[in-house]
């Protein structure tokens, strides 16, 4: 029997297959070169804020697995949880889901990464936790999954407001910038220093974090003394709280009350002038960090941002990119 036609057929098949499954090389945030087979149709996302972003690109079409901290938009509830976070991925489940790409953040261990790569699943290390480079990260992810157009729209939306904040706060002198004390994780006087996303956002929004210089290489989250806060006399106090479900307005007002009622702070400017705010940790990073930035900018400089309603912008963003109606509270107190 003449085998030649069969060989030709096999060769043709291989050619066609490699043609349709083209592989591209991308450099991820850690500088590793990752080879990804395109088109990417199935993604498991464990990176901070990444699932929320991916959903905005394709309405969740590609997302087959997520981390448990990603719960916006509500439609993500239908996506399998493939690990609590990058720190504890369910490797077996991920391999079973057979994704074309896993996006995890820096908490993924070397061993887990190797395990996934041995299963021929490419892993990109990306997270949207740092406002300084989140636009670049968004562009990189969009390129890999082939949704540049939709991504450009979203980035346009974000940059419009970021630019607006930069423009309006550019002319501020150091004296015009309020001193801010930022508290998080629900422990009194637990704060953030230089190099944390919250500190960066405070800077972007035109204010100075009073604990900016208190961190060091190993600890960016110092606990400070109440006495020092009183002495430094911040103009604004912001607390951020996070949860594994959306926070309600009643939660936020409770947190607010717990700061305002601290007897030792009674004489601090922020308390006396009613400039104490609570913001949900859900919008501290990722696609919606720009909303945090808007809230803060308005709190820091109410005159400069009179025309801006962060809540309305947030609603617009949710409507436009997530087809979601927002009714949860994300900041307290708000004017509207």
């Amino acid at each position: 029997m003449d085998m030649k036609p069969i060989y030709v057929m096999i060769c043709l098949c291989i050619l066609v297959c490699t043609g349709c499954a083209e592989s591209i090389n991308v450099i991820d945030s850690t500088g590793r070169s990752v080879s990804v087979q395109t088109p990417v149709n199935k993604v498991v996302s464990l990176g901070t804020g990444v699932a929320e972003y991916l959903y905005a690109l394709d309405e969740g079409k590609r997302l087959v697995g997520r981390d448990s901290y990603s719960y916006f938009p509500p439609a993500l509830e239908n996506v399998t949880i493939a690990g609590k976070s990058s720190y504890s991925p369910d490797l077996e489940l991920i391999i079973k889901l057979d994704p074309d790409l896993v996006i995890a953040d820096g908490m993924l261990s070397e061993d887990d990464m190797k395990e996934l790569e041995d299963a021929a699943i490419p892993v990109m290390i990306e997270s949207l936790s740092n406002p300084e480079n989140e636009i670049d990260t968004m562009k990189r992810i969009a390129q890999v999954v082939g949704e540049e157009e939709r991504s450009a729209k979203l980035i346009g939306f974000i940059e419009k407001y970021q630019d607006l904040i930069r423009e309006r706060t550019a002319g501020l002198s150091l004296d015009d910038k309020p001193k801010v004390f930022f508290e998080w994780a629900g422990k009194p006087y637990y704060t953030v220093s230089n190099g944390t996303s919250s500190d960066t956002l405070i800077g972007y929004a035109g204010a100075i974090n009073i604990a900016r210089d208190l961190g060091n290489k190993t600890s960016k989250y110092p606990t400070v003394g109440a006495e020092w806060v009183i002495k430094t006399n911040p103009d604004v106090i912001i607390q951020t709280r996070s949860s594994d479900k959306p926070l309600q307005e009643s939660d936020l007002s409770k947190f607010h009350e717990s700061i305002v009622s601290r007897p030792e702070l009674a004489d601090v400017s922020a308390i006396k002038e009613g400039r104490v705010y609570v913001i949900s940790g859900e919008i501290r990073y990722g696609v919606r960090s720009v909303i945090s930035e808007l809230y803060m900018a308005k709190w820091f400089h109410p005159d400069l941002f009179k025309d801006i309603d962060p809540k309305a912008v947030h609603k617009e963003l949710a409507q436009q990119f997530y087809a979601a109606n927002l009714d949860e509270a994300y900041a307290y107190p708000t004017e509207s």
Partner: protein
Amino acid sequence: MTSHDVQGADARQRESYKHGRPKEEYQKFLGKKMLFFLIIILAVILLAGLAVTFGSANLSVKDVYAAILAKFLPGYFQTTHFADTIVWGLRLERILMGIVAGMGLSVAGAAMQGILKNPLASEFTLGISSAACFGAALAIVMGAGFVGGEYLVIGNSFIFTLIASFAVYGLAKYKGITPETMILAGIAIMYLFSAMTSFLQYVGHAEQVQEVVFWMMGSLGKATWEKLAIITGVLAICLPYLILKSWDINAIGAGDETAKSLGVDVERTRVISMILGALITASIICFTGTIGFIGLVAPHITRMVIGGDHRFLLPGSALVGALLLLGADTLARTILAPVILPVGIMTSFLGVPFFVYLFMRRRKEFW
């Protein structure tokens, strides 16, 4: 009192009888102990007086003391509202909390070591601290507990502390196990509660896990006058009773049989002392979180200096514990100011070298 001490004391006594002046000798021993008490009391007062002037708020020594005295003699001293807030609202609460918490934890440790006749007995090795942690974690992560509202965490840790104490004691009493085995039971309970806490940390979300970790590290920063009043009240009731019972505890140290033959109700003394120790510990750590090491090391330091007679050991441990915790907290809030370190780190840093020093010098008389 242990057999070593008994022998040591006997030898000394025989020596003094030989010289024919037992009373004088006894007075001398008593004098030494009183001197030790006096030194530690002065050190605590001095340290408290010094600590109250430390802080970020740039108050001068004069401002601080004017603020303190103005409370008692409002006509004679002028103070500002600012100084008043800092001194009365922050510093004094914290300093006094350090003193009473140090006292309570050390007395509880000393009493437990005495009645269990075991140098390793402390709120950690008996599983009491980890039970308190679990109670707090349950409240933080699950929002579940015995009492509601803002006392959820406090109430939970308090109740779990008592549960663990009774569990350890129940094991000892109904299975008739020895004090040595009791420590083993305590350690088993510690592991059980630690595992349950770890599980809760695993299911909890990031912010809750943070809160549990903070709770486990302990802090005097949450001190208020109400909390101080509660702890002081508990101490004021428990400490005199324990000191009153110290002859009985001494007798237990010589062996249960000996104690019984001396007419001591061993079971009763052990139960009551255990309950009081647990009550003191619970009332402190439910407000401060777990502060390690004080309850173990302060009684040992005291024992090495003034011996194992509980009449002196209990109040002595209280004073040493107060000094140690106050010193540790003062360091923790000043060395990296305005950043505040967890006090548990400093208690070990301060306590261990001193402990080792004494251990090397006076090994033979130890325990």
